[in-house]
């Protein structure tokens, strides 16, 4: 597909300086970067003619010519940091500010033996074998310009490694903060999460802004869920309303692994979240639980690609959206069931609540089934607040706003209930309530 070749020049030309500054990097990494930039130059940013980008226009990203940001001079103050963290998340927290690792703000305290949470740059410097073994192996650059661009410019992120049979208490929080210094800049976070055989862990990936700058985040997270591992992943986007956030979660599931990814898209001006699990072993379970809340003129695009590569795997997609004002949401749910993936059990549900006349949702299921003994269902609903339910609540004394808020909260409730990590769920409940018309009157919780 011919992309906006003319327009992405600054992204291509900016690479020379970037590459020069990293002359000391190992050759395997330099190769990944070169291949990424080469591919990006060839592809260019996707246009609306690209089927996978039909409803999401990324020309503003091409036009804005974001540049790489300089290392922060001053440290983020405690107060601002507190607004970004998740109270009670336990475990460990690795913090990145404006595209740079902030060790002073991170707490990588006492981790069980063998567990690693290391900043990407430190990994490269120390020659961490695990990183080299997995980085770039799963997120393919061939057809994806954003993954390719990330491969070229990746310089920030975390390696999270859970050794065999380790059950991690407390979650790991990877926190990416964009401050007021982020205006006009871009970051390309690359995270690698490896959970070895029989391990169990929860990892939270947050993108939070302290201001309302215009910046571009292009993140790629590669996950390997080892045999019989249980891995819970949370993606929380609370970026500035003027920002662009494109993220790709590429998961490689091995036999009998149990992987769950919850996504909560709350902030960001233009958000595109790609989730691509490949069930590459028998008996895998995959659950994608998403919630997106739009207001103002936000645009959020959820792109799922679930690949059943082996038999006897179960996958579930439950995505719910609440769209207000002139928000525009997109949901594309693609499921590929490969020829030998017999006894696949795949289910996809997308439910949308429209709260205003101009709210929009484009929802599209796409099932490609090549095996002949499978169970695949998909369903989508688009509706407004149930008038009968609204009247029922009002007839008992609840005001119009209180009843409406309660019903909106109830709609999102199902998604939140699936989130087992209490600190995340509680924080999201709080954020949800604060966005409702009668936040005060909803005296949670009973």
């Amino acid at each position, binding site marked *: 597909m011919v992309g906006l070749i003319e327009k992405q020049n600054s992204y291509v030309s900016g690479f020379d300086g970037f590459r020069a500054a990293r002359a000391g990097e190992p050759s395997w990494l330099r190769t990944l970067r070169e291949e990424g930039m080469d591919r990006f130059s060839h592809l260019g940013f996707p246009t609306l003619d690209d089927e996978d980008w039909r409803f999401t226009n990324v020309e503003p990203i091409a036009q804005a010519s974001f540049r790489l940001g300089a290392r922060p001079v001053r440290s983020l103050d405690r107060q601002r940091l507190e607004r970004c963290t998740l109270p009670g998340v336990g475990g460990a927290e690795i913090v990145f500010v404006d595209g740079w690792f902030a060790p002073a703000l991170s707490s990588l305290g006492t981790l069980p033996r063998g567990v690693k949470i290391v900043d990407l740059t430190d990994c490269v410097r120390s020659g961490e074998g695990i990183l080299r073994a997995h980085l770039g192996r799963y997120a393919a650059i061939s057809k994806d310009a954003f993954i390719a661009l990330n491969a070229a410019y990746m310089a920030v992120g975390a390696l999270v490694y859970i050794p065999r049979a380790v059950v991690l208490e407390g979650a790991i929080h990877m926190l990416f903060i964009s401050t007021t210094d982020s205006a006009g800049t871009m970051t390309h976070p690359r995270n690698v999460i490896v959970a070895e055989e029989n391990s169990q862990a929860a990892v939270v990936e947050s993108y939070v802004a302290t201001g309302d700058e215009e910046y571009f985040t292009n993140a790629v997270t590669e996950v390997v869920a080892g045999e019989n591992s249980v891995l819970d992943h949370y993606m929380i986007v609370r970026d500035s309303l003027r920002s662009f956030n494109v993220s790709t979660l590429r998961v490689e599931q091995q036999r009998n692994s149990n992987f769950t990814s919850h996504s909560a898209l709350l902030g960001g001006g233009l958000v595109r979240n790609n989730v691509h699990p490949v069930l590459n072993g028998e008996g895998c379970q995959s659950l994608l639980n998403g919630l997106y809340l739009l207001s103002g003129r936000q645009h959020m695009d959820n792109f799922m690609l679930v690949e059943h590569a082996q038999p006897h795997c179960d996958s579930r997609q439950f995505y719910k959206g609440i769209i207000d004002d002139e928000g525009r949401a997109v949901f594309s749910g693609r499921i590929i069931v490969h020829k030998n993936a017999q006894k696949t059990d795949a289910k996809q549900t997308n439910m949308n609540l429209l709260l205003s006349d101009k709210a929009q949702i484009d929802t599209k299921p796409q099932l490609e089934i090549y095996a002949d003994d499978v169970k695949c269902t998909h369903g989508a609903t688009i509706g407004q607040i149930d008038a009968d339910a609204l009247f029922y609540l009002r007839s008992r004394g609840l*005001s119009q706003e209180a009843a409406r808020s309660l019903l909106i909260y109830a709609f999102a409730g199902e998604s939140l209930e699936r989130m087992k990590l209490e600190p995340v769920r509680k924080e999201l409940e709080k954020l949800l309530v604060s966005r409702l018309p009668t936040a005060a009157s909803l005296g949670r919780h009973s």
Partner: protein
Amino acid sequence: MLEIKNLHAEVDGHEILKGVDLMVRAGEVHSIMGPNGSGKSTLAQVLAGRETFTVTEGEVVYDGKNLLEIAPDERACEGVFMAFQYPVEIPGVGTSYFLRTALNAIRKYRGQEEVDAVDFLNLARERAKLVDLDERLLNRSVNEGFSGGEKKRNEIFQMAVLEPRLAVLDETDSGLDIDALKIVADGVNKMRSPDRAIIVVTHYQRLLNYIVPDFVHVLVDGRIVKSGGKELALELEETGYALMGENTAGTNRRPVAVGAP
């Protein structure tokens, strides 16, 4: 307490209520019976304030106030309660939470102190016993997965918690077996009080064996064509509604409030 004068109401351009007159005093139990399509449910919903119905003529005076100008939630705060004929399921909204919020909205309106979660739970448990409602249902979403009987009992349970001054029961008996009917009737009877008026809208006479009304009104084709005491219900049981319809022309429009001074 309630005076309905020449009430006309329509939905989708069709006139359903064609001049209803009714007077109800505190402490009284009135039954409104009638054939299907007569407007019974419409009357109940208009009193509750359902906006799909448009009042085209007439007035409804409740406690000296113009009820038709009061929003549905305010009517609830003023003490009006309707038990729905088809209670809707509301997934994601907990029964206990919803009812506590409702009770507190009403209490706040009346300048009373709000009830906290613990006190509410005790109150709820006590009232649930009135209609033999399983406590566990309180933890479920409103009406979700409730059987028909449980839904109807949930309505009376809510009535017991909110303690309205005017309760309108819209075909509370429809679809219930005799045992469930007795439980519901029992609950309603326990709610009888000199300060409370109850309007029982029903198609079948059977309920009135258990909730014995003070007055019975027959609604046919949008008008109350006959009023009487509880014997009227038995009479209808024998003869059916057909006679009422035929006699519309000759019957006085103004209902006779039997026994009223």
